[in-house]
């Protein structure tokens, strides 16, 4: 079962390495497929945080390999500069306390309501599309 080549794990590790802020989620920022992913996206968008997003749903191995890398069982997972920041609960706690903005090097808006914002730019990365 174990093999030296694990293209999905490599692609995930590369995506984490190459994107300063990256969110692994269900669905994409324009159409989150789970409430926890939606709330996490809304917090990032409320801070105007630029982030890459990966939809883990297209292939169950993405989630499996991601959790193996991060030692974190749930989705979403937010990474900043290669480090796991947290899942929805931690990201929301950090957003509400202002720590999220601080961690991401952003300014916390004066009033920070997590309304469902307009879909912001970031196009989803397709891990599964990069596998040949």
């Amino acid at each position, binding site marked *: 079962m174990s093999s030296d080549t694990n293209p999905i794990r490599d692609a995930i590790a590369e995506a984490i390495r190459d994107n300063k802020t990256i969110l692994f989620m269900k669905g994409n920022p324009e159409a989150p497929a789970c409430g926890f992913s939606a709330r996490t996206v809304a917090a990032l968008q409320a801070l105007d945080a630029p982030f890459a997003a990966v939809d883990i749903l297209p292939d169950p191995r993405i989630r499996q390999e991601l959790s193996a890398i991060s030692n*974190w*069982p*749930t989705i979403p997972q937010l990474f900043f500069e290669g480090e*796991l920041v*947290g*899942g929805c609960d*931690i990201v929301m706690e950090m957003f509400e306390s202002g720590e999220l903005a601080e961690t991401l090097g952003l300014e916390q808006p004066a009033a920070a309501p997590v309304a469902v914002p307009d879909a912001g730019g970031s196009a989803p990365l397709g891990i599964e599309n990069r596998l040949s």
Partner: protein
Amino acid sequence: MPTTDEIKRRIEAAIPESTAEVEDWTGTGDHLRATVVSPAFAGLSRIAQHRLVYDVFGAEIGGPIHALSLTTRVPEQA
């Protein structure tokens, strides 16, 4: 699917001196929310605190336990 009582008992059995409150968010048993207070969390990052709780359930998270939302705290100093 484990009940909220079972989740509570397992967390309290596994994490030293912990108290856990577990509620069923949706009434359907698939989105549970737990607040866990334990001195074992002292000095740990939130990530490490949550990992201690998730580790109680291993692969059940995302399987039989669809979603377990966590808040972790160190007990307030007397």
